[in-house]
């Protein structure tokens, strides 16, 4: 409410600024003129003459010239009889009283957010965060500030890194894992976590950088499940499906029966066609969700996923793997025209990058879509 009161006061002040001169009668206003300037110049000549800066004849010449101009100016000085036109003054007053508030409201309302309170730092630190997400972020910020001042606190980095990853701040998570390794020392888990964060930052692609980390992790602990899983994924993404299947089979063979990640690896293995029983290439949750569906709904779900993939690729066409997956999906759905269309789109998208283009062409060849 106070805000509207302040707005009203400000508006009144602005209107007053327009009305004030209108209300004052047409008093004889003081104003400058040409004549004053020339008189001033004449005096300046006298002063220069007195100071000996110019000689008498020069001064005389200048005086004559300025006097001539002075006379001309005095003669042409407009005998301004200030008039007062009440009609126009009233119009100006109406403009101020009606037009000004209208313009102000008309411009402000679409732009402003009069309902939002201020939110200065002091108030925020009193802990007026709204809801869980807010306070989690608040905590993260506090930990980050703490680490900024004490960057050698390894435990802090250890705590922070997974949280950052969950919040989707992958680049920061990568940095945090790196710091954790620097100050806590190496371990297979940390290397594998770092690799996972790097891959996550690259939209799930196991980049060469990520792969290096997984290889380091594997060197530290040959049985590290995360490192092995991702190395398999790297092989799959490189198109070496058999290698991927081998890695994952070995991983499953060594895994304890109740390992929580077993289903994930099994699904992945099935995807590369090495799992014996054919399993759909979907995550557990998706499968669980699709179990309760009839065939039509399931189809719709699959189509929805394919559409999402297609839109993502439209925005970012660098992802060769993604293109291949899309083409494959269209082929599986029996939509050969769309598959051909997608493959030509893909060629266009990566046309500037010889390495990617080569990878794409090879991939398409294996799918039976040539040239």
């Amino acid at each position, binding site marked *: 409410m106070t805000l509207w009161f302040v707005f009203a006061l400000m508006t009144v002040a602005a209107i007053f600024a327009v009305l004030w001169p209108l209300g004052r009668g047409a*008093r004889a206003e003081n104003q*400058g003129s040409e004549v004053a300037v020339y008189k001033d110049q004449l005096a300046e000549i006298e*002063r220069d003459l007195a100071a000996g800066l110019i000689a008498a004849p020069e001064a005389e010449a200048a005086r004559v010239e300025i006097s001539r101009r002075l006379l001309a100016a005095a003669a042409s000085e407009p005998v301004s009889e200030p008039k007062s036109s009440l009609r126009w003054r009233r119009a100006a007053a109406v403009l101020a009283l009606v037009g000004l508030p209208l313009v102000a409201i008309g411009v402000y309302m679409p732009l402003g957010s009069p309902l939002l309170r201020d939110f200065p730092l002091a108030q925020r630190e009193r802990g007026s965060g709204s809801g869980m997400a807010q306070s989690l972020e608040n905590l993260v910020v506090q930990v980050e500030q703490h680490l900024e001042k004490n960057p050698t606190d390894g435990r802090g980095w250890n705590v922070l890194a997974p949280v950052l990853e969950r919040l989707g701040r992958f680049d920061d998570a990568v940095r945090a894992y790196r710091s954790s390794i620097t100050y806590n020392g190496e371990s297979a888990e940390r290397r594998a976590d770092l690799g996972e964060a790097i891959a996550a930052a690259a939209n799930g692609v196991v980049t060469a950088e990520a792969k290096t980390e997984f290889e380091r992790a594997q060197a530290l602990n040959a049985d590290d499940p995360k490192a092995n899983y991702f190395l398999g994924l790297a092989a799959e993404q490189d198109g070496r499906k058999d290698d991927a299947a081998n890695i994952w089979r070995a991983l499953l063979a060594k895994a304890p029966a109740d390992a929580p990640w077993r289903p994930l690896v099994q699904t992945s293995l099935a995807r590369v066609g090495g799992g014996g029983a054919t399993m759909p290439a979907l995550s557990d949750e998706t499968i669980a969700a699709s179990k309760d569906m009839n065939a039509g709904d399931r189809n719709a779900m699959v189509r929805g996923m394919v559409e999402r993939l297609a839109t993502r690729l439209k925005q970012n066409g660098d992802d060769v793997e993604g293109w291949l997956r899309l083409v494959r999906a269209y082929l599986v759905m029996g939509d050969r025209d769309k598959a051909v269309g997608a493959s030509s789109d893909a060629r266009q998208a990566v046309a500037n990058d010889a390495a990617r283009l080569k990878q794409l062409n090879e991939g398409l060849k294996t799918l039976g879509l040539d040239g």
Partner: protein
Amino acid sequence: MIAEAGHYALVLALALALIQSIVPLIGARLNDAALMNVARSTALAQLLFVGASFIALVTLHVNSDFSVANVYENSHSMKPLIYKITGVWGNHEGSMLLWVSILALFGGLVAAFGNNLPLSLRAHVLAVQAWIASAFYLFILMTSNPFLRIANPPIEGRDLNPVLQDIGLAVHPPMLYLGYVGFSISFSFAIAALLEGRIDAAWARWVRPWTLVAWIFLTLGIAMGSYWAYYELGWGGWWFWDPVENASLMPWLAGTALLHSALVMEKRNALKVWTILLSILTFSLSLLGTFLVRSGVITSVHAFATDPTRGVFILLILCLFIGGSLSLFAGRATSLKQGGLFAPISREGALVLNNLLLSVACAVVLFGTLYPLAMEALDLKISVGAPFYNLTFAPLFALLLLAVPFGPMMAWKRGDLLGVTQRLLAAGVAGLVAVAIVWGWVSGGSTLAPLAIGLGIFVIAGAVTDIVERTGLVRLPFATVLHRARGLPRSAWGTAFAHAGLGVALIGIVCETTWNSEYIATMKQNDVAHVAGYDLKLDGLFSRQGPNFREMIAEFNVSRDGEAISVMTPSKRSFTTRGSSTTEAALLSRGASQLYVSLGDATAEGAIAVRIYHKPLVLMIWWGPVLMAFGGMLSLSDRRLRVGAPKPARAKQRLQPAE
């Protein structure tokens, strides 16, 4: 509430500006004093509201209110207070708000102190000011609103670009804007004169102080910006001929020409039309500068954000004002009466030559700035750099400097070139002696360098000669000289200082570019670098935690001939929030020369890349402009130039300029 009140104040300023751009013009047409006086009160109210809006934004930045998008994007709660304040204009939206605030300030000054202006002229001037203001208020509100809010405010801001987290940001943009925007006054006066169809010697008298104020600020702003680039960017360069610098140099060149032509107009009632045109061009170039910097046409540290709608909007404003004013000029200029004849060899002639050279130099810079942009639009990448300007701009300026000492010594109307040359003989000899000494003393470098230094000395000696001549230092007894020196108008002293400043800057530029020496290497602890007779020993590398950055400091012990002089501590700061780093160069001034150390990347083995420069007489580059600005201030303080303090006792009807 602060945010919304500030926002609303800005909207009210727009509404007031709209009224101010119409009502006074109607008043002037009807010769109605009350309607014309609306201009005055609305201009003052506008200043009040824009000022309130600006203060609101500053408060929001200081309070770290991240519910305001502008604060969130450019501030950080741990930033030191000074950068929280300067960060207000360290971004596009805030800097535009500063721009209009200064515009409103100038409008308010005309309204408050323009008592001695004819009523209708004041009404016209303020109306034109309001046109400019309205356009920019609309621009800010529609495309670059600093008061937009975020419904769910983030906890922490994204911090200000680290390069801008420097004391330079507190000084450089406000100065530069005072200069840029200050020229809007002479623009408004020019348009007002064209609208009224009346222009006289008195007009120039009123315009000149305003132009001078703008020119002083612009001079200092450019010099400050150049010094900032010099110490912050870490390469030791102080002028890069990049479009943003050119954008500030062009109004300066045109403004300098305007300053001189306004002089002719005031004293001799000549060059009226040319002065009007220069006023229009100077402000147009200021607008062009704003467009180049703010539209994202070029990328640099100044182009904070690129947004096509902004570019189009500013381009529209640009076309409207430049096109409109030039067509008005074309239509109306012929109706202005000409006056004041003079011989080619005269003070007026010298000032015309000055204007000619400055305009051509300005055109050269304009070409060099726009040509690459035009080529880029055609997908051709070319860059116009120092070689181009050395070939074009430098000779023009050399010619100009050669003529500078002659100007003030010429008589008005018809001068005696031979006589002036004789009187400048001593200065010429001083210049030649300087050439000979430099030639004999140093080896290497360009053969042109000693000549350029000689030219600089000639300009300085010429300025001294002028003062000596006027006071009669050699001919007359000392007491008379003192008396005459005191009686000398301050504008004469101002001229001498400003002209000498040119020479000083020239000497600095030539010495720095010709004889600077550099040493680039990777240094380990206890390594010693030898540069220009100085020994710099790297004592070690340290880390330190700043308020919102970590910095790595290298400590150098500087000695010369085994004698310890000082310790230099260049550093590299890394800012986590933006994930970027800055180099903080260490400077050691020895007289006008400087040692300059900046750090590169550290290698794994604990060594660090180091750039060390010795820059002879480099400080003179900035002393020159400071001297020029000082001359400008002297000239401004000259009573005969002042806009006029009223003397009510003597004149009831009319206020007269101070006598």
